């Protein structure tokens, strides 16, 4: 029983990280209708940057988020301006190919700079645990999960409480209408892209503390993220949080109680099944599709 509760808590903490990163992915999709396959690559990139800050300058990886996130935000903004901007009008299948190409290039960049060996960030508290009521909770996971939830709340506040947030939501519902009421849609899109990628960046810094990583790990991550986003319904923030909860807890329990060799197949199977049975996700609604054509 204690074991189960412990696993559940660890699953919830992991879900916080998943929700943050998947939230970034779904935000970009909601506003730009772009499925950013490079999202996982940005996450691993942030983990490597965090690693360099920690190993070269001794900056605590979780405090390092304050540095990593703005850096990744800037990289995201530049990426939008140079690569992603023409995509706003391109067919969606080609945007998938383009961001997939971007993921490959990022993987190569990371392999060139940091090498393809497994890298780990081990801060002082890396091996310590909290022991509460017989539960055994690694400090890194507790801190990581809490930081992720804090950043996610900050993102949520930006989206619901600021003018920028309203502009973003307006743009995601109707870009033409948003432009008519004075929102500079291209600027909003650039900000959203950068914000979404910054969320992956913040998540990446935390992930770097929790697991060892290699440049090629981005495939695994994008698979998880797509499974989460697809579960919750693409473009829905609340859906991403719900999907992350289901996926995070489910994954922790699966690897604890079921064979880990098939566990790698779980995200792919989820993507496959959900897109086939309920393409709009759990929380998504089908929109009127004929009005666009008429």
């Amino acid at each position, binding site marked *: 029983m204690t074991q189960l509760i412990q696993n559940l808590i660890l699953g919830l903490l992991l879900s916080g990280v998943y929700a943050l990163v998947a939230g970034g992915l779904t935000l970009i999709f909601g506003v730009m209708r772009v*499925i950013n396959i490079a999202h996982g690559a940005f996450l691993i990139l942030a983990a490597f940057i965090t690693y360099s800050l920690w190993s070269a300058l001794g900056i605590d990886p979780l405090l390092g988020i304050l540095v990593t996130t703005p850096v990744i935000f800037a990289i995201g903004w530049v990426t939008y301006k140079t*690569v992603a901007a*023409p995509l706003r009008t*391109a*067919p*969606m*299948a*080609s*945007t*998938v*190919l*383009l961001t*997939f*190409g*971007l*993921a*490959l*290039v*990022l*993987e*190569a960049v990371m*392999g*060139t700079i940091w090498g*393809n060996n497994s890298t780990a960030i081990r801060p002082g508290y890396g091996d310590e645990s909290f022991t509460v009521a017989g539960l055994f909770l690694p400090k890194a996971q507790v801190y990581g999960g809490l930081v992720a939830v804090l950043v996610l709340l900050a993102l949520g506040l930006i989206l619901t409480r600021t003018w920028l947030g309203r502009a973003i939501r307006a743009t995601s519902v109707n870009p033409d209408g948003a432009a008519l009421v004075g929102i500079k849609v291209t600027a909003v899109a650039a900000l959203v892209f950068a914000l979404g990628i910054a969320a992956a960046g913040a998540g990446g810094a935390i992930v770097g503390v929790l697991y060892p990583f290699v440049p090629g790990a981005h*495939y695994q991550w994008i*698979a998880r993220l*797509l499974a989460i986003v*697809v579960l919750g319904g693409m473009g829905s923030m609340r859906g991403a949080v719900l999907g992350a909860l289901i996926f995070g807890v489910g994954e922790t329990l699966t690897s604890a109680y079921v064979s880990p*060799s*098939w566990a*790698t*197949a779980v995200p*792919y*199977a989820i*993507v*496959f099944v959900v*897109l*086939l049975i309920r*393409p709009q996700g759990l929380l998504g*609604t089908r929109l*009127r*599709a*004929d*009005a666009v*054509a*008429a």
Partner: protein
Amino acid sequence: MTRSMQVLTDPLRVGRLLAAVALVLLLAFPLLTDDAYYQNMVILSLVFAVGASGLNIITGFAGYVSLGQGAFIGLGGYTIGALATRFESVSPWLWVPVAGVVAAAVAVLLGLVSLRSRGPAFVIITVAFLFLVQVVAINWVSVTNGTAGLTLPLPSWDREIINLPFYYALLAILVIQLLMTWWIRRTKLGMGLIAIREDETKAATIGINLPVEKIIAFAASSVFVGMAGAVYGYYLTFIDPRGMFSILISVQIILSLLIGGKATLWGPVLGAFLIEPLNEIANNSFGGGNMRLFLFGGLLMAVVIFMPKGVLPAVESLLHRRRTAGKAGLVGARIGPGGSLTSLTERAGRAEPVSRGPGAAPLLEVAGLTKHFGGLKAVDGCSLTVPEGSITGLIGPNGSGKTTVFNLIDHTIRADSGDVTFAGERIERLPSWERAHRGIGRTFQITRLFGEMTVLENVVAPQRSFSWQQLGRIAVSGPEADRAEELLEFVGMRAFRDQRAHALSYGQQKLVELAQILMLDPRLILLDEPAGGINPVLVERMGEMIRELNSFGTTFLIVEHNMPFVLALCDPIYVLARGATMASGTPSQIRTDPAVIDAYLGDDFQLEQEAAT
């Protein structure tokens, strides 16, 4: 321009000449060099050429972008691997066709489960599919030997010619693959696939059986790829899950297709022979790994951004521009006077003129039709009857649900409830293409031609009924094309037959769309604003054509805002308001109905009418 210059810039002749030269070179290649490095490079290029050419059918023609194509090479390799290690007395070559069947069977399965997803969701499904197949290959140890991989028996023939059998087998598979692609492009099946790529919903309304066509395309796109994968596996003599199901194989295949040119015959081959040498250079001269990733990732981004059409189409349009330089474009030409349908009908074998009117038996009956979009009741209990042989009008204010009623009648969207009876048969559960086969043709308010197809191809695309033979029938020439030309003559658009549809003006597109649905031999034609957005002369011509078709027995249901047009043409007329029929009757009844004037026509309409009489 001299004759010799014309020969040099005729894309067809240039293409054939180059293809012949390439084939001779490929046939002779192994005899020219015995350098293993180059032989290996060309053998891999052939594998990727088959892979890309297969992908072309599902991605280039049908428009479904797949990042899982490499899975079929892997499946082919594993089929030959698993069978050859089990039955060591049998020649492994025997398993090559089996590998093709296995790949096609898995592709059909993938096609079946992904029938409902399009666009980006489909791309993601194909990636998930590839990784799932890889996980199975890793875990199904009894068949695949897991991550340790399978070692095939070594070839039994002379080491001197070790590569030749692999080479010529792959070349033969590529030739068959290309012949199939060439044939598909010219058939009704091919037209249907391209129609699906251009506008899937519209394709269904002109009688194209979407699931069947897509499943065939999936099988055709993988059968020879599986065979090539088997030869490739035999050539490698060692297969393992990481190598055979690497996503980079899929990336290289799709890159070959995109760079060479989607939906072209030779593009995928050209692309494969361009990319594989680059891949070898990156591997051998720059240490592989990261360099390969830079190459593939960078190329993929560059192609999507800068050259979405690919090399061959770019060269083709350049040649075309050279050829037509200084000649007047056809797009600005005048619309023809239109042919008489009487002459057409003799050849087309239509029925004798019949005269039936408002009193006749109902051809289409709609009862209690309802469609809600969230809280919005777009259609709310609409009922109407279209008598056989009539020209029935459907009018009403903007947003009253007229187009939605059309969408429900031809199943472009699914109704929440309500009955639709056509010629005595309940059809509300039938998909769009079955309704088209029963004789319902429909035009769209904003014309929906297949933009990248020529005018002629647009008109030959419809399928009057479903049969397997018909799918294999040649569409771009012969009786189908002759019929299409007659219909184009009727609407006055024959001079434009080789223009791409997106180059036409709106009015011209309306005429072509009418010819397109006439290809269905429809008993009932639904016209959504036939007179909207076109000049008065064309409006008049449109009215004449409707009358002429009607005099031969075709029934019409017309949505239109041009009241003089409707009042002169239609009887009976239904008035729709807030998704329900509020009035119906003859033109004179409608014109004077106080409720209709209040809801739609307005007081000044009545005044104008009085002033006119």
